[in-house]
């Protein structure tokens, strides 16, 4: 009961603040929480939201999946091969410092306007963080554990799978969580600025039709989706790292 109150109170405060903001004469288009909830139900009922979600999640799976399959091994390799790590991290730092949206014109020129180019944007948004964390995780490996394994005659392969990889796992997983939130950011940026697909298209269409309750509902839905995905990842993380509890 106490926990329920502790979790419910911030939500209630947020809704109250939203309601209050809607009453303020900021804009007559600003929908109340209730109007947004009604619009969300309508959009869910008509299937428009689910269809848009399916399209968006397709890009997300493609882009984020590629970011993991390329980003994690690259980071691990950078950590294992010192020289490569020193050189590559300069470019990685640049990619992280760069406002990723600035690459969108380049992506359009290279790939055209389609779901694939959304995936490319998502990849660019998330992969540098995933790689950087995997790299940092390898570098965090305690030298003493490597020494211990060598003393028992561990081969390079065993050193990697039994010492380096488990040592890097917490950082890798933290990188995936960071990367996933960046991937959602990339997804919406891509769909708003570049390719008229999925949830971004729904948000833009609602705005141009002055259906601000629907626009807000789509934004809220995106928030729910990314929140759920991040929660699932956090649960997986807690399970994999249960030794840290």
């Amino acid at each position, binding site marked *: 009961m106490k926990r329920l109150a502790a979790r419910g109170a911030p939500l209630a405060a947020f809704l109250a603040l939203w309601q209050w903001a809607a009453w303020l004469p900021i804009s007559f288009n600003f929908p109340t929480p209730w109007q947004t909830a009604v619009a969300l139900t309508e959009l869910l009922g008509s299937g428009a939201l689910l269809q848009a979600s399916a399209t968006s999640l397709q890009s997300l799976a493609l882009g984020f999946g590629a970011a993991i399959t390329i980003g994690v091994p690259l980071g691990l390799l950078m950590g294992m091969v010192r020289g490569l790590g020193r050189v590559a991290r300069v470019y990685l730092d640049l990619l992280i410092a760069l406002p990723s949206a600035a690459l969108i014109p380049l992506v359009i020129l290279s790939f055209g306007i389609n779901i694939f180019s959304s995936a490319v944007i998502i990849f660019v948004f998330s992969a540098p963080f995933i790689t950087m964390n995997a790299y940092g995780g390898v570098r965090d490996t*305690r030298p*003493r*554990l490597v*020494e*211990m*394994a*060598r*003393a*028992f*005659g*561990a081969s390079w392969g*065993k050193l990697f799978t*039994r*010492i380096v990889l*488990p040592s890097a*796992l917490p950082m890798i997983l933290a990188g995936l969580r960071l990367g996933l939130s960046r991937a959602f950011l990339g997804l919406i940026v891509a769909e708003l600025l570049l390719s008229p697909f999925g949830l971004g298209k729904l948000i833009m269409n609602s705005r141009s039709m002055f259906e601000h309750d629907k626009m807000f509902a789509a934004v809220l839905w995106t928030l729910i989706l990314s929140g759920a995905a991040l929660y699932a990842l956090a649960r997986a993380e807690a399970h994999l*790292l249960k*030794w*840290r509890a």
Partner: protein
Amino acid sequence: MMVQPVGIAIERVSKSFGAMQALADIDVQVKAGEFLSLIGPSGCGKTTLLKCVAGLLPVDAGRIVIGSRSVSGPGGHEASLVFQDFALLPWATARENAEFGLLLRGAPAAERAAAARHALAKVGLAGSFEEAYPSQLSGGMQQRVGLARALAVNPQVLLMDEPFASIDEQTRRILQDDLLRLWSEERKTVVLVTHSMEEAIYLSDRVVVLSPRPGRVHRVLDVPLARPREKLDVRASGEFARLVDELWQILKKMQ
């Protein structure tokens, strides 16, 4: 499963790190089944020497022979290391940690589990502790796991690098007694690096005193205290106090 203990011959060993000479012309013969300690001021290279014996560091000159095998690299099956900071895998349970040496050597799962259980029982960690993670164990218990991991591969030689240095005094004394009991049961050759004079005298047959920069053998002190010391209350004897003082006088003159 009992193995015959083997001796260690350290012959004219020298070792440098760049311009800094760490060990110069070290000659030590460790007898089979002997308990030998290395002591000396910091910078005397006692840990370096132990790592050379373990094959983790190559020697520049001279050679080290364990039993009949000349040490040329790490991973020799004759010796196991015990570390000051325990070097346990934080993501693995006590049992998995104890199995780790066997896992690296490719032993089948059933054999690993049996050997790990046996070793954990020997160091007093049977039962529910087997599934505990290192973070759930006290420092003393963590070192028991470290010792079990070393014993599980059934080595002829135990190489211990200040194993009790980061453990509180009461626990340390209990662990020292347990180590003596294990040593008399298992008949292994032990080389222990320590900076504690009491520990060196209490545990060892002989204490090798190294001088610093570069590390050389300064003196070898015999410890003729009766065994089993863990049962004879040796710490309270006048002879024990006299030997600790003799060691202190040697070390003091070196400063």
